[in-house]
C-alpha cells in the first residue's frame, strides 16, 4: 500500500469515565448468588457441576469443573448452601444449567485455598486452568487455552500486548486494577515471562488514564521487558485487531490465528487475576464492577462476588435516582441488555449500567441514504453498504460468493457503524447475520461434499 495508515482511528465517543477516581468498595454479601455453567453465551462450553443440592460450600471451593473444550472451573464466591441446580434463562433464550448458592453470611474460606505448585510450563497452564481464570476483556475465553496456544513452538510468540485500553465509555474497572494492583500485574507479567517465554510485554493504555500510566511506569521502572504504550483515546482502541495494528503494525489476515504473528493479546485484569491465584491461591470469585449510567444516584466502583444479582449491586451502590429504562452488563457499545435485575453478574461483567429512557437509543430504522459514514468509521474498512446489498440477494451461491469477496469475516464487531448511521440501521447485526449465513452455507456444502 502506498499510503499506509499510521494508526487506525475511528470514533470520538464521550468517555463518561465518572468513576475513574473512585476506589472500589466491597459490597455486603448477597443473600444468594447464581452461577451459570457457561461463561460466554455458547451453551456448548458449559462446565459440569461438582456439587449437589444441599451441599455446604465455602469461598473458593470448586463447584463446577471444566468439561470439554473452553469451559472453566467455577468456584464458590460465597459460603453457604447449594439450594438448586437447574436450567435457567440468562442472556439468550436458551436455558443454561445454573447453581444457586444461598449465603450463610459467614464468607468462610475454603481450606483448598493455597498457593498452587508449578514448575514446568504444563503445570503452570494446569494451575491457571484450576484458577478458573477467563479473558476478562469480554470474550471470557479461558486464559489457559490462549496461553497454551502461545507456547506452541510453531508460533514462536515473543510479544505480549497487555490490553488496558478500556475504550468503552463509563467502564473503569481495568483502570482501577492498574492503580491498585500494579504489583500483582507485575507478578503476572513475570510469570508469563518465565513460563510462556515471551520477551516483550507492552502495556497498552489509552491516554485518558494518565494516573495509571504514571503508576505503572513507576512499578516497571528498570524492567527491560516491559513497555508502557500510551494510545489515543479513540473507540475501538481496545479491539484486538485495532490494538495489534496500532502497536505493532501487524494485521491478522482472514483465517489466521493471532498467535501465528508471534503476538498474544490479553486483558490487564485477566493477567492480574491470574497472578492473584498463582501467588495466593484465591481463584476468580470476585471482581471490580463499575456501576454507572444516567439513572444511578451516584456512580461507583464496587467489588462484588461473581454471581451477585444486579438488584443487590445497585442497592449496595446507592440506588437509582430515576427509573432505569435499560440495564446493561458491560459497556454501552457492546454490553448486553438484561431483561431483569435478578440477572447475576458473571466473570466478564466489568460494568453494570443503568440508563434512563433519554440516554438509551431506541431507534426506528429507515432507508439507507448511502452517506458512507459507516464505511468511513469502520476500523477495518469493510464495505458495509455492499454487505447489506449482498444480504438481499436471493441466490445463496451468489450471496455466499459476494460476502466472501467482501471479507465480512474481518468484522471486529465494534458497532461503530450502527453508532454513526443516520438511518439508524442495525448495521452490525446485519454483519453478524451475514457471518451466520456463511457458516451455515459452509456447513451445508461440507455435508454435500461428504455425500
Amino acid at each position: 500500500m502506498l499510503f499506509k495508515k499510521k494508526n487506525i482511528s475511528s470514533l470520538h465517543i464521550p468517555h463518561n469515565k465518572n468513576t475513574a477516581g473512585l476506589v472500589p468498595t466491597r459490597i455486603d454479601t448477597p443473600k444468594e448468588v447464581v452461577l451459570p455453567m457457561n461463561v460466554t453465551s455458547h451453551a456448548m462450553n458449559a462446565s459440569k457441576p461438582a456439587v449437589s443440592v444441599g451441599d455446604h460450600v465455602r469461598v473458593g471451593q470448586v463447584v463446577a469443573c471444566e468439561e470439554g473444550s473452553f469451559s472453566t472451573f467455577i468456584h464458590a464466591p460465597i459460603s453457604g448452601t447449594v439450594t438448586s441446580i437447574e436450567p435457567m434463562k440468562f442472556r439468550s433464550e436458551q436455558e443454561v444449567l445454573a447453581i444457586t448458592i444461598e449465603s450463610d453470611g459467614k464468607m468462610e474460606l475454603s481450606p483448598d485455598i493455597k498457593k498452587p505448585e508449578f514448575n514446568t510450563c504444563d503445570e503452570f497452564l494446569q494451575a491457571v486452568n484450576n484458577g478458573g481464570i477467563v479473558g476478562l476483556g469480554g470474550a471470557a475465553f479461558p486464559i489457559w487455552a490462549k496461553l497454551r496456544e502461545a507456547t506452541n513452538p510453531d508460533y514462536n510468540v515473543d510479544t505480549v500486548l497487555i490490553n488496558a485500553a478500556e475504550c468503552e465509555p463509563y467502564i473503569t474497572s481495568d483502570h482501577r486494577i492498574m492503580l491498585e494492583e500494579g504489583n500483582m500485574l507485575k507478578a503476572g507479567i513475570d510469570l508469563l515471562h518465565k513460563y510462556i517465554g515471551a520477551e516483550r510485554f507492552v502495556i497498552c493504555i489509552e491516554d485518558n488514564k494518565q494516573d495509571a500510566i504514571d503508576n505503572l511506569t513507576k512499578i516497571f521502572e528498570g524492567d527491560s521487558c516491559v513497555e508502557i504504550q500510551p494510545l489515543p483515546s479513540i473507540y475501538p482502541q481496545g479491539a484486538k485487531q485495532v490494538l495489534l495494528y496500532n502497536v505493532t503494525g501487524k494485521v491478522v489476515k482472514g483465517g489466521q490465528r493471532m498467535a501465528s504473528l508471534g503476538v498474544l493479546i490479553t486483558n490487564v485484569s485477566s493477567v492480574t487475576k491470574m497472578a492473584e491465584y498463582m501467588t495466593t491461591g484465591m481463584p476468580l470469585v470476585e471482581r471490580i464492577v463499575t456501576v454507572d449510567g444516567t439513572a444511578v444516584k451516584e456512580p461507583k466502583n464496587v467489588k462484588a462476588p461473581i454471581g451477585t444479582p444486579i438488584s443487590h449491586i445497585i442497592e449496595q451502590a446507592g440506588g437509582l435516582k430515576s427509573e432505569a429504562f435499560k440495564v446493561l452488563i458491560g459497556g454501552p457499545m457492546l454490553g448486553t441488555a438484561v431483561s431483569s435485575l435478578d440477572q447475576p453478574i458473571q466473570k466478564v461483567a466489568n460494568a453494570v449500567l443503568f440508563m434512563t429512557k433519554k440516554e438509551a437509543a431506541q431507534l426506528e430504522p429507515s432507508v439507507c441514504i448511502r452517506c458512507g459514514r459507516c464505511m468511513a468509521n469502520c476500523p477495518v474498512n469493510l464495505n458495509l453498504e455492499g454487505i447489506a446489498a449482498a444480504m438481499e440477494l436471493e441466490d445463496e451461491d451468489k450471496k455466499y460468493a459476494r460476502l466472501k469477496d467482501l471479507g465480512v469475516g474481518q468484522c471486529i464487531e465494534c458497532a461503530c457503524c450502527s453508532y454513526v448511521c443516520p438511518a439508524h440501521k442495525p448495521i452490525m447485526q446485519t454483519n453478524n447475520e451475514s457471518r451466520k449465513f456463511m457458516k451455515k452455507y459452509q456447513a451445508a456444502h461440507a455435508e454435500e461434499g461428504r455425500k
Partner: protein
Amino acid sequence: MSKLYVSASPHIHSGASTRNIMLDVIIALLPATAASVIIFGVKSLIVLASCLIAAVGGEALFNLICRKKQTIGDLSAVVTGLLLALNLSTNVPVWQCVIGTLFAIVCVKCLFGGLGRNFANPAITGRVFMLVAFSAVAGGANPTIVDAVSSATPLEVLAKGESVDLLDLFLGLHGGAIGETCVLALIIGFVYLLVRKVITWHAPVVFIATVFVLYLAFTGDVMLALSQILAGGLFIGAIFMATDYVTTPITTCGRIVFAVGCGVITFIIRYFCAYPEGVSFSILIMNILTPFIEKWTEKQPLGGVK
C-alpha cells in the same frame, strides 16, 4: 418496576439522523437562497415557493395515493425543491416550475422507491428535463439589483469570446439561475457543510479543479479559466449535487473518480459543443456510472484475503 427494555448493542447512538442531515443541507443553501432574493428580487421568491410547494406536496400526495408511509418528514423533498428552484431563472413560469419539480420528485425519486433508491439526482434530472422540455431555464433573466445591459448569461458571453468581470461573477451580479450566480454564498454553504461533516471536500474541489485545469491546459488563459469556473452552475452543482449521497459513490476514492469524470464532461460540453452549460449533464451521466465506479474502486478490508 416496569419491564426493562432489551435490544441489541450498541445501546447509545451518535444522534445523527437523515432529517438532521437534510436540515444541514437546507441551512447550507440558505445563503444562496438569500442571495437569490437580493439579486433577482421578489420574482425569485415565486420560483422558490412554487418549487418547494410542488416538491413537498408532490411527495405527500404520492405517498397518500400509493398508501405508503409518509416520508416528507425526512425533509429530502424540501432539499430537492429548494435545489431545483435555485437552478432556475426568474423567467421560468410557475407552471413550468411545478411540472419540473413534480417530474423530479415523482418520476425520479418516488417511482424508484423513494429516498435512497433513486439512481439519479432528482433536482439535476428535473433541471435537465426542463431544459429539454421548455428550452432555456437558466438564461434570460436580469438581476434587479444592478443595471444590466444584456440579459445574456456569463457563459453565453464567454462563448462569444468576450470577457466578464471576475468580481461580478464571484458576487453573482449577472443573469442566470437564481441560486447559481452568487459564488460567495455557495462557498459559505460549502464551508458550513464541511464544518458539520455532512460532506467531504473531495468531490467539489476535484470537480472544480478539473474544469479549471482543463481550461488552462487548452487555452493557456488564466482569466478565462477562472471565469469558466465562476460562471454557470459549476459551484452549485459541485457543492450540492456532486455530493448527493444517494447518487454518487460512497467511498472517497470513488468520489474523486466521480468528480474528475464530472469535470471532464463539463469541460467537453462547454469547450467543444455549441451548448454553453454542461454541469447538469455531466453530473447526470456520472450518476449513471456510479455503480460501475463503486465496483472499480472497491477496497479490501483490513486483513481481507481474496
